[in-house]
């Protein structure tokens, strides 16, 4: 399931990242590595992008990009 399907307040674990190139680099740099736990904090008022908590900091991601992150809900 994609990260964009996780509801606010739930925690998920990264299974696989399907992004390539620049996005992959950027995601890796920001700490989106396999096995990491991500908490979905909230969606933006217009439902996109979403705010996430990862490695104890907050980050925002568009849903189109969150879709590329395969996760398992915990």
């Amino acid at each position, binding site marked *: 399931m994609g990260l964009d399907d996780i509801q606010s307040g739930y925690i998920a674990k990264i299974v696989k*990242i399907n992004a*390539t*190139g*620049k*996005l*992959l*680099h*950027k*995601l*890796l*740099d*920001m*700490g989106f*590595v*396999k*096995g*990491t736990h991500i908490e979905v*904090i*909230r*969606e*933006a*008022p*217009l*439902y*996109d*992008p979403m*705010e996430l908590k990862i*490695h*104890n*900091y*907050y*980050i*925002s*991601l*568009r849903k*189109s*990009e969150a879709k590329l992150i395969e996760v398992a809900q915990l």
Partner: protein
Amino acid sequence: MLSGIYQHIANYPGVTVDKKSGRFSYKALDIEMVDLPGTYSFSSYSLEERVAKEFILNERPDIIINVVDASNLKRNLYLTFQLLEIGIPVIVVLNMMDVAKRRGIDINTQEIQKMLKCPVIETSGAKAEGKNELLETIYALSNELKYHEFKLNYDILEPYIEHLQKKITVQNENLSQRWLSIKTLEEDETILSRLSFLTPNIKEIAQQSKEAFENTYNKDTTSFFASTRYESADIICHKCVKENKKNHLTVTDIADKYILNRWLALPILFLIIFAIYQLSIVLGYKITDYTWPILAAFKNLVIDILPQANFTEVPLITDFGVWMVNSANALLNYIPIFLILFALIAILEDVGYMPRMAFILDRVFKKFGLHGQSTLPLVLGGAFVGGCAVPGIMSTKGIPDDRARLATILSVPYMNCLAKVPFYTLLLGAFFSANMALMMFFISTVTIFIALIVAKLLTSSVLKNRETAPFVMELPPYHLPTFKGVVIRAFERVWLYIKKVVTIVLAVAVILFALLQFPGLSSEKQQYFEQESNAILQDFDKKMKDNSYYSLIDSKEKVASLLNYYDEYRSKRMLTSSKEGAQKVDDAFTARNQEFFLFIKPKTNKDARIINKELRNLSSQRNKILREIKNEKIENSLLGMMGRSMEPLTLYAGFDWKINVAFLSSFAARESAVATLGSIYENNKADNQRAEEAMALNSGYTPLHAVAMIIFMVLTPPCIATMIVVKIQTNSYKWMLFAIFFPITLGIVAAISIFQLGTTHALNGIEAMTLFYAAVVLLTLIVGLFPSKRINWTGGIEPKTNGLYSKYIQSQKKEKK
């Protein structure tokens, strides 16, 4: 903090893209410190990273100081590991220890130091703690630079790194060879192109190793590197960091519950933007009422120095001097606005609201090819009644997505410029006095739609292949801004504006002056004006013959100097409103010439009163001739010729050459459009007739003409100041020229269409404007609903999409298939 240079760390990733440096000495050791742009990593391809990486490669610093946010250690250590691998000694500075302590984060610095085998120092930037310790460490390191290579064990990837390391030929590189080979495996473009001088086929070799690894272990190299580094960072965090308040909500958590709340976020955002607008544009405009007299005094000072007019013969140098001062003043007048605006932006940046603003509005802007971070530039450009494109464009710097950034730069100038407002007021006052509010609403809101349409148009055409960046943005914790930081940055940016914009605008003002002055009056016209002025003088002379003061004004020179005295007194007197001020001016003028002063304030002296009355008359007659000369000059000038030559086209939009000239001169600064139009339509009784009335009566225009003019003005090219900033921000003259000619074309096409439609369908002004408005809104909706591609970035490692490298990869992929 350390080097004495002012280093600002804004709470907004990507604010400092440039590097700043400073020199100082410590214990007879000369140290040059360079502040590099902040970055999250050393392997992806943002502008900041490129700047930082290239600096380290080219300048070879002796020591790298890695300033780490102690309250967010894990992610920061990820970068630390990458820096340690470079092969240059690293000092880790744990900054913001105060914040970390407040959050209940205990850090065992000694333990980190032991594990990383590099000096680790605790500081808290806001309180300047730990400064001496850092200096002492730098000093110690420079005396005994005995450096042991740092190696992070990449496990199954090691054989591939070693293999590559052997293939790389380097010359005089004191950088770690291991690091270079790791970077080639990561396909780092900067390193690859550097190594390819000595190892031409390095890209192929690296690609082969990478593929060999990926095929053997079914793992992605890039992800593998990242995971190893994160795991290592994790180990350090586990051993050295204790979080005591792990599940407590921080201030940021609580604040964001409201600030980013689904229902409250937009109203709060709107309130903040409205407050910025009120404080900077509205309040700032009021402050200019107080600062304007300073500029006016400066103008008077210059006029005092310049040679005086001999009745209607004004020396060229005087004309030139006044023109230059006027041009400079028009821009300097906005400094209070900019100062407030820049200070407020600095506060927003420091607090950490900017990324949140982007978070809230990204969805809307994404639809038009822009970025959440385009909000502020567009607001500053004039989302309400008026703004200024200059600070708007300047604030696009932090947008990470190159395409969205360029689109923002090119669409901000469409927003409602504050200096256009007087022009609109003039036209609305003349032709739409009954529907002024409605028209103003149309004008101020239509610009937002136009900017969005233009952005969409550009991003799906000329900007289509520009580099884009994924929207992966940190939402940093809130911070209290420091007063000093905010003030210094506001002044820094204002100074930048003065330095870069005002100087170039003045240069262009010289050119415009020449275009307006030459070739000048024909000899017949010159004779005609001479006769005119002589006639007035003779008339004056005749009336004065019997006056007891005749001896004081019996020659042209004497009259001219009295007239200058009179005009000067009036302009100085106008600047003071207080009684004491007025007395001061009176005293000064009495001291200068007691007899002349009598004519200005004749009191009960009968003869002097007659002179006073005639003097006033003479002054207005002289001004009339001067105005006629000016108009004649404009008409004959190069700019006038340009205006005329455009008439065949612009007449379709209803513009005659006079309007063309007004638009052309408005290029220098918007204010001059009003001034030019005003002076063209002022008649000799202008004293008691306002410019609006004069225009409505004397121009022969209909409201439809006015609508065409307004539409053109709405779309019209940005002023020179804006062009300069476009040049600075895009670093390209090409885009600057594009930003000039694209809007002109758009403007003339729109103006012609509406004017022609209006003429053929006999629409009145309001109807034509409503039609235009409806068309724009409709277009915005269509464009906005137009499906945007889901994945909106291209390229990857290669900055240029058509580079050899990407072709190589493609050919490799084909072969594999």
